[in-house]
């Protein structure tokens, strides 16, 4: 009977119910979108790292694998590393951040194409002129450009020579010499990718490199990709926790306000129930059941909204913020929404329970 009573209450005031559900959905969407963006961004990074075709990555002293960095490794290292045991090929890249999460990669075109298997051109062709730039399909979609059109990157007008299939190192490419020249980093690279002579020899090669270049971060690509996860990036983890906290506070406040309004609106009805002999537990059960239903409704609506957000981001910024749907977070976001809803309903519930039945019955 309580469920029916609650259900009829919810149906009887559809606008208030919808508004409450929408407001509870906001933190759910916020959490799911943020987690989706983090996961999407990192899985996109991992996919692009795999696309390089390397077995080992070699970085400058004191640099972090998961951060953008300038070119701080002398390019002589490329030839030096190529001569190390079990190393078949080496290619250096310059990574230059261009704002937000985007960066341009300067590549040694023949070496990079050899290692990665080469670009698949969807439009246009490879580098031919000094002002040519190659971008992937996502970036072309984001910047709304096609091969042959002009594109401003790093405050310089380039011509889009080709649009390639995504999934190889970066979204934006320049020949390494040109990028180095434009960024005053001639003779330097950001990191060096190495290809082993066979897969079985990767670990042996890494061990030998680590022995010889003790102070340099050296990873197998398997390690590098496995490190590309939310839990391995403390700042991102903290950021997600902050947003979770905000989600809880918003959910809590919204439901509390909504249930407070519901209790106020229903003062007389609560008085009627009390006059019929309803116990405190009955009234509290009714309020909490309503909060639970709204919390669950908000979760479902929040999940639907996260799909809409994903679709929108995919249309607007597919390269910079590649979104993902992370289903494993649905129960967490739902738990937060429902928990906040129940917590938020406690105070109004206590008000309802304590309401004087005579005053409640006199309420207009």
């Amino acid at each position, binding site marked *: *009977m309580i469920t029916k009573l609650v259900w*009829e209450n919810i149906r009887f005031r559809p606008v208030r119910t919808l508004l409450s559900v929408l407001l509870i959905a906001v933190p759910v969407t916020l959490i799911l979108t943020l987690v989706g963006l983090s996961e999407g961004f990192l899985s996109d990074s991992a996919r692009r790292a795999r696309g390089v075709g390397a077995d080992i990555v070699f970085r400058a002293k004191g640099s972090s694998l998961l951060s953008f960095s300038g070119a701080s490794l002398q390019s002589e290292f490329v030839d030096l590393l190529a001569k190390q045991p079990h190393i078949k090929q080496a290619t250096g890249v310059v990574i230059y951040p261009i704002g937000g999460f985007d960066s341009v990669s300067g590549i040694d075109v023949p070496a990079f194409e050899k290692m990665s298997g080469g670009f698949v051109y969807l439009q246009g062709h490879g580098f031919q002129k000094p002002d040519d730039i190659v971008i992937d399909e996502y970036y072309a979609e984001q910047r709304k450009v096609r091969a042959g059109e002009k594109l401003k990157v790093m405050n310089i007008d380039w011509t889009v020579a080709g649009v390639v299939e995504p999934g190889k190192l970066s979204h934006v490419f320049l020949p390494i010499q040109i990028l180095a020249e434009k960024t005053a980093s001639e003779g330097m690279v950001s990191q060096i990718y190495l290809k082993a002579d066979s897969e079985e020899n990767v670990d042996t090669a890494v061990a030998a490199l680590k022995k010889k270049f003790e102070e340099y971060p050296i990873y197998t690509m398997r390690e590098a990709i496995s490190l590309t996860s939310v839990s391995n990036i403390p700042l991102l983890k903290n950021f997600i926790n902050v947003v979770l906290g905000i989600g809880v506070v918003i959910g809590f406040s919204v439901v509390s306000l909504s249930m407070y309004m519901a209790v106020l609106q229903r003062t007389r*009805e609560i008085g*009627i129930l*009390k*006059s*019929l*002999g309803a116990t405190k537990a009955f009234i509290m059960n009714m309020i909490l059941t309503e909060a639970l239903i709204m919390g669950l409704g908000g979760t479902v609506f929040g999940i639907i909204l996260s799909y809409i957000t994903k679709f929108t981001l995919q249309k607007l910024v597919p390269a910079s913020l590649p979104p993902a749907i992370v289903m494993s977070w649905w129960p967490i976001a739902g738990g937060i929404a429902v928990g906040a809803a129940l917590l938020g309903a406690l105070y109004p519930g206590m008000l309802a329970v304590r309401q004087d*039945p*005579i005053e409640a019955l006199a309420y207009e």
Partner: protein
Amino acid sequence: MNSPIIEVKKLRKVYLQGKVEVEALRGVDLSVPAGEFLSIVGPSGSGKSTLFHIVGGLTPATSGEITVGGSNVSTVGDAGRTELRRKCVSFVFQKFNLLPNLSAGDNIRVAMHISGMKLEFDKRLQELLGLLGIAGRLEHRPSELSGGEQQRVAIARALATNPAILLADEPTGNLDSKNSDAVLKILRDLNEKLGQTILMITHNPDAAAYGHRTVHMSDGQIVDTSFRPE
């Protein structure tokens, strides 16, 4: 004469209005035998509603003794008064006080659920619904019913739980004369046919005349008692 189902002795109730104490009841003594139809009349502020609320367990007394259905309710707390409302007394209000979001039938079922009863309408309840003339209106929400029908649903809800005492607070106050007569006749029939104990507050002397006895209240005291001529 049946044994008393309500016994009130030296009942006092003092309210705080801001910082001012207001004495709503000043030592009321009243005994109501089971099966009586008692009318309580008096001007506004005479204390009749307060007496009603204390007998019905909606508010505690300041002092005095009240026994309802054999239980001393002057000493019980909030939970005890809730139990009294759940098991022993039922209310019919001037403003009907039906839950607007539920159908008439569900309004009755809520009361039964709260009382811990099964939700099926048994033979007794179906006869009552027939007597009240609302058997065909149970699927309708209060807003779809006339005032008279709403009050009859409220009476059905009050009696569905088989209470020992029915407390009716100005039950005809919001009704036209035709519906008022119908409701009063129903209350009298319930009293005569089912032996239902009824206490009814009213301003209307004609309505009060439906009771076996009428007590007159003024300034928080019972000042007069009159009986219906046989």
